[in-house]
């Protein structure tokens, strides 16, 4: 993974100094609340219901074991012994003290981490495929391009105060696991005759106006990636709406102008700036790429786990759900579920569990961990022959839940329990759904399905692209939940459709159960997944059954 040199270290340390000075001026009343707000947000600091919330960046979801241990130490020393992985592959601490935040940032800087641009109206953490570099369907490894984008977007002088937040995602595989079509800019890397190109999508997003991004530029040569993004964001910075925060994202501008007219403005700007100083060269691309070479894989043979562990059905279930194919024979990638019965909220992880995962990474997966936008963790390079040992340690530490891609692998925002923006609680809803599935056979019978919950229309829980989406809404001061069906991420990204009037929190589990019963009754074969069944039969059978009473 990327290692800091003295330039990176200096920049991150100076950022802590700058932030500490801003905080002191705020305490000394040299900065007003209104002035300090964008400054603290650019450093990931929110003022929440109970305490400030600090969001720490995990660039493109890649983390070393030492960094994870440092996060565990921070959780113990400055928080309540846990952290929360977000849908932007970052980690959040919910209980730090405002005056202690510079200290936390210094501890982070010691392990080459920071909270830069994890919030605020600027370019946020670049996200990508958590299986980059190890997935068999990969065309291009996205990690080095993501690192180049991270550096370019860090303190970009023109884009510190955009009309609204700006999210960039990048994918390099046949299956899009980075949601490029629901980002402000989505980048799809493609290769032709060993030359690298980028398909640039723009104006996608979730939030209160969900939009699927449109293709703005096909096959942009990689050397122009930064200058092209600059022109897009420059036009947005100048023309995006600033008087209404709900209409300020780039998707609204692209929609108002039409993608062709938007493109014309972008290209007019780009054409005389594309060979500017941020024109990438091969030397820089190779310099960053060398940080992401393959680890020293052993030459192994594939193991027939089903035969060897036929008595241990739980292990085999876990293998089926929580591990996936790897580019190297004899290796698999392990996804550790943070959605078990013992977790207080989806994505939550105790400091003790962080240390367990860090040790496993050291012992079995080259000391690296990845976070996923589904709020789980990944050990990317585990030998098949070590899988049982890894599983045993995880199970002993309540991290052995075999539910990746199943309905209890819920994506969920912190919701009304923590977040001051939320209309409704989301964690108790996730728990109540989770409680439906004490019977693992039922869970496995339902098979692959996604259920996403957001506590408000800001859609941090990505409810629009959940096969089942749940959105917390406020009706006359009480909490209600609107349910959507048919959302999907990936190359066939689509947005869910609202099923009908919303439900109270008590009604939600029964409604979910009814939806699943209809699916099971209507599916062609056991192999037909929920989303395929839904696409075949449509919304009506679900709607009729649910509202008949």
């Amino acid at each position, binding site marked *: 993974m990327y290692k800091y040199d003295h330039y990176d270290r200096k920049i991150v340390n100076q950022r802590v100094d700058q932030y500490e000075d801003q905080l002191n001026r705020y305490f000394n009343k040299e900065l007003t609340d209104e002035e300090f707000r964008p400054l603290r947000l650019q450093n990931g600091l929110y003022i929440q219901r109970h305490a400030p919330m600090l969001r720490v960046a995990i660039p493109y979801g890649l983390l070393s074991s030492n960094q994870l241990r440092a996060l565990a130490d921070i959780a113990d020393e400055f928080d309540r012994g846990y952290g929360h992985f977000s849908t932007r592959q970052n980690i959040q601490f919910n209980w730090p003290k405002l005056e202690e935040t510079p200290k936390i940032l210094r501890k982070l800087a010691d392990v080459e981490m920071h909270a830069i641009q994890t919030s605020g*109206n600027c370019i946020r953490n670049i996200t990508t495929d958590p299986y980059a570099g190890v997935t068999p369907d990969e065309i291009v490894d996205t990690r080095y391009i993501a690192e180049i984008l991270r550096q370019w977007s860090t303190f*970009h*002088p*023109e884009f510190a105060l955009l009309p609204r937040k700006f999210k960039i995602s990048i994918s390099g595989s046949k299956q899009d696991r980075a949601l490029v079509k629901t980002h402000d800019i989505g980048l799809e890397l493609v290769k032709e005759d060993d030359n690298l190109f980028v398909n640039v999508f723009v104006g996608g997003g979730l939030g209160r106006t969900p939009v699927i991004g449109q293709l703005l530029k096909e096959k942009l040569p990689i050397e122009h990636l930064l200058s092209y993004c600059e022109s897009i964001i420059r036009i947005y910075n100048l023309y995006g709406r*600033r008087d*209404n925060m709900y209409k300020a994202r780039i998707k609204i501008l692209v929609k108002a102008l039409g993608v062709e007219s938007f493109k014309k403005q972008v290209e007019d700007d780009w054409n005389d700036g594309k060979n500017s100083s*941020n024109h990438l060269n091969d030397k820089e691309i190779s310099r960053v790429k060398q940080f992401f070479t393959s680890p020293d894989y052993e030459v192994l043979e594939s193991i027939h786990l089903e035969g060897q562990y036929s008595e241990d059905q739980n292990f085999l279930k876990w293998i089926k759900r929580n591990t996936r194919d790897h580019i190297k024979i004899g290796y698999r990638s392990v996804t550790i579920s943070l959605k078990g019965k013992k977790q207080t909220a989806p994505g939550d992880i105790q400091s003790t569990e962080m240390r367990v995962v860090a040790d496993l990474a050291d012992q079995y997966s080259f000391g690296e961990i990845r976070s996923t936008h589904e709020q789980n963790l990944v050990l990317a390079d585990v030998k098949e022959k070590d899988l049982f040992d890894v599983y045993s340690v995880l199970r002993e530490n309540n991290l052995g839940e075999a539910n990746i891609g199943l309905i209890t692998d819920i994506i969920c925002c912190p919701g009304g329990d923590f977040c001051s923006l939320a209309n409704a609680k989301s964690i108790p809803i996730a728990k109540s759904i989770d409680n439906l599935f004490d019977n693992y056979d039922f869970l496995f019978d339902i098979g692959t399905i996604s259920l996403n919950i957001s506590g408000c229309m800001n859609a941090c829980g990505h409810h629009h692209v959940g096969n089942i989406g749940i959105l917390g809404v406020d009706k006359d001061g009480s909490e209600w939940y609107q349910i959507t069906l048919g959302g999907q991420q990936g190359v066939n990204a689509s947005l869910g459709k609202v099923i009908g009037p919303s439900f109270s929190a008590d009604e939600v589990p029964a409604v979910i159960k009814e939806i699943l019963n209809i699916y099971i009754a209507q599916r062609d074969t056991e192999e037909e997944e929920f989303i395929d069944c839904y696409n075949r039969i449509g919304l009506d059978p679900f709607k009729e059954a649910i509202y008949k009473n």
Partner: protein
Amino acid sequence: MDTQLIKNKELVLNDWFWIVPDTSNEEVKKQAGKVVQFKLTGECFPSDATLNNVILPEAEKVIVPLRLFLLQTDKIKKKYKEYGIWIYSHDELDLFSHLKEDINSFPVVGVYVEKFADGRIYSLGNLIRRKLSYKNDLRALGDVFKDQLFYLARSGFDSFLIKDGYDAKKALLGLEDFSYSYQGTLSQKPLWGER
């Protein structure tokens, strides 16, 4: 020296009179629609009537709104020894095309931000330097204090009129917030060249 003006990385005497028309009675544009209106929603400009009523103060050097300069060019040229122009952060770059003068005949061009969180000023800096090839003093005006200075300097600005009530001496240090920057700008190469 009691001054709020930073230029070329030091505090300097401000002998420029900055003319700001009163827009408190102007209508704020509300409707969003096409792009130009989109950009203008929530903003207002001084009307021609307001501009025609601006009384030109006694001074040697002034910075006047470009819109005022376009309306009262001859008067301004006659009255002042030196004059610069400024635009609002919601002005179109095209406004400069109405000038008969070469933009480089102005010793100062300013961009005004009403609110600190308005980041358009940075992109306008880039455009004024790159598209209009402006070479002289580019000045940030309005809600300007320490925390914008590092970015503003890298977006092409070389002078900053620090907002009244804010410590300009402290603000000066903002220019030194970082020793290195990753990305290149119009005047600086990206860090990767050094690595």
